[in-house]
């Protein structure tokens, strides 16, 4: 014990002479040459992410155009300008908007039903342990099963029509949303739940005012994943049997025009799929994120 103390002393010897203490006057900022200076225009523009991405898109379009022209084969690889021309023609004659609308309608129905089913399953899971087990078993079974793999069965059960599409969509949406919502609820901190009960909140009001907002980041993640699954599943399903669903959606438009060897229009259809996906993912979901979890400082 005393040995250890002696060792400590030798590491930190007492100074022979006390070191002087130093006090500073506050330094004037007047001599500082730059307090605030505007950045150059280039620097300001270069800081905008969307502008940089736009530049990349333009560069890609130019490369596409050059390659298309050098290949000079509209059947294999139409140029960018030919694709855009086909796109605007299809928009003008109404075939593209009609196809997009027909896809969107089915999608929204499937998505809505999926959300409702996920909400019910999560509610059951929150209410009882057997409900939790049910949800966990179902999710671990069906989540790895690509929705499109159920299409042949759906065709037998519901026939060639929107019902089959919606069935497949519901399957693709439900599990992702239910899984995320449930794990979000489970991860709400104990403290926050105690705060809610402290206010005297119970039952549905407790869920609506504390659990759902607290789990919102996870719920939103579920909605985003569900949307992405649904959109991809829908286009794939339409490619297979879009002919049945009346006017036919975007997937069918792509398939049909390939058969008619109108390749620029196929590209235009693909472009529309991309644009709709981009708008929903980057505009709608981003805006929701910015207004909620980013403002609350709770994104992980």
């Amino acid at each position: 014990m005393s040995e250890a103390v002696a060792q400590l002393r030798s590491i930190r010897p007492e100074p022979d002479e006390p070191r002087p203490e130093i006090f500073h006057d506050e330094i004037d900022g007047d001599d500082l040459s730059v307090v605030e200076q505007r950045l150059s225009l280039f620097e300001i523009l270069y800081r905008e992410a969307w502008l940089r991405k736009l530049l990349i898109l333009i560069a890609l379009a130019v490369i596409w155009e050059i390659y298309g022209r050098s290949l000079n084969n509209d059947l294999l690889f139409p140029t960018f300008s030919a694709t855009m021309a086909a796109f605007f023609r299809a928009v003008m004659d109404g075939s593209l908007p009609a196809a997009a609308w027909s896809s969107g309608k089915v999608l929204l129905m499937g998505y809505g039903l999926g959300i409702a089913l996920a909400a019910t399953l999560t509610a059951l899971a929150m209410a009882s342990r057997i409900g939790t087990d049910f949800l966990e078993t179902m999710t671990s079974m069906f989540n790895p099963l690509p929705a499109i793999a159920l299409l042949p069965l759906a065709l037998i059960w519901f026939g060639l029509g929107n019902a089959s599409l919606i069935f497949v969509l519901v399957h693709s949406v439900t599990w992702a949303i239910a899984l995320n919502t449930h794990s979000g609820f489970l991860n709400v901190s104990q403290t926050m739940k105690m705060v809610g009960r402290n206010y005297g909140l119970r039952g549905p009001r407790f869920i609506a005012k504390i659990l759902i907002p607290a789990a919102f980041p996870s719920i939103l993640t579920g909605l985003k994943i569900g949307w992405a699954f649904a959109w991809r599943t829908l286009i794939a399903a339409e490619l297979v049997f879009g002919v049945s669903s009346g006017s036919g959606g975007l997937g069918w438009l792509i398939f049909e025009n390939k058969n008619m060897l109108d390749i620029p229009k196929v590209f235009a259809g693909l472009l529309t799929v991309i644009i709709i996906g981009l708008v929903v993912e980057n505009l709608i979901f981003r805006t929701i994120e910015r207004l909620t979890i980013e403002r609350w400082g709770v994104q992980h």
Partner: protein
Amino acid sequence: MQHKDPLLTVQGVTLQYKTPHHLITATYRVSFDVMQGDRFILLGPSGCGKSTLQKAVGGYITPTEGEMRLKGRRITQPGPDRMMVFQEFDQLLPWKTVKQNVTFALQASGRMNKREAEEKAMEYVVKVGLESFADSHPHMLSGGMKQRVAIARGMAMEPDILLMDEPFAALDALTRRRMQDELLKLWDETRFTVLFVTHSIAEAIKIGNRILLLSPHPGRVKAELNSTTDPARATELEQYIHQMLFAHEPEEAEHV
């Protein structure tokens, strides 16, 4: 001797909880009375069940033995007449601003309508000196400010008793001292009753007027002492409490 009825009576309370493999007794036959306007401290080393005891007063845990009464009414479930202030910073609802956090507490408990609640909320936000942050969300605030909001929320509800569970333990030393002073100032203004849990002897003497000493494993009452504001007496009392709590432990543990 005080002759008025106690605000909170805790009578022979034994608390037990289960971990996956054990049944643990947190406190054993604890009794004490809290009077109106008391700054009542639960003090003890970790493992003495002081937080568990407070959660039981909050209504989150039901005693296996004994009972607790607030104003003569038996405590059976959580309620807004006993507002909790926790140690954790995530006790504020992150999707609400400072003002909304206080307002929501008042509205959710069904005490007042929106306009009254907003007025009262603002009054208490000003009281803790956060009027310029009233419209900020909690994640923009420092730890000390968050605890101030939690205190404002607790006080705005004007509960029968404020339950504070080591509210300053996660703050840095300087902020903690300032918050202790502010809490005492607020108490001077409104004379609320508070049940305050801490493991710091110095904090207990500074904040409290009455100190309940608990011994660990399981928590049992060791003594119930009066605090003091006289600095000389305070040092003496601190040493005395320290001895009572740690006398049986080996030397080295003292400076941990």
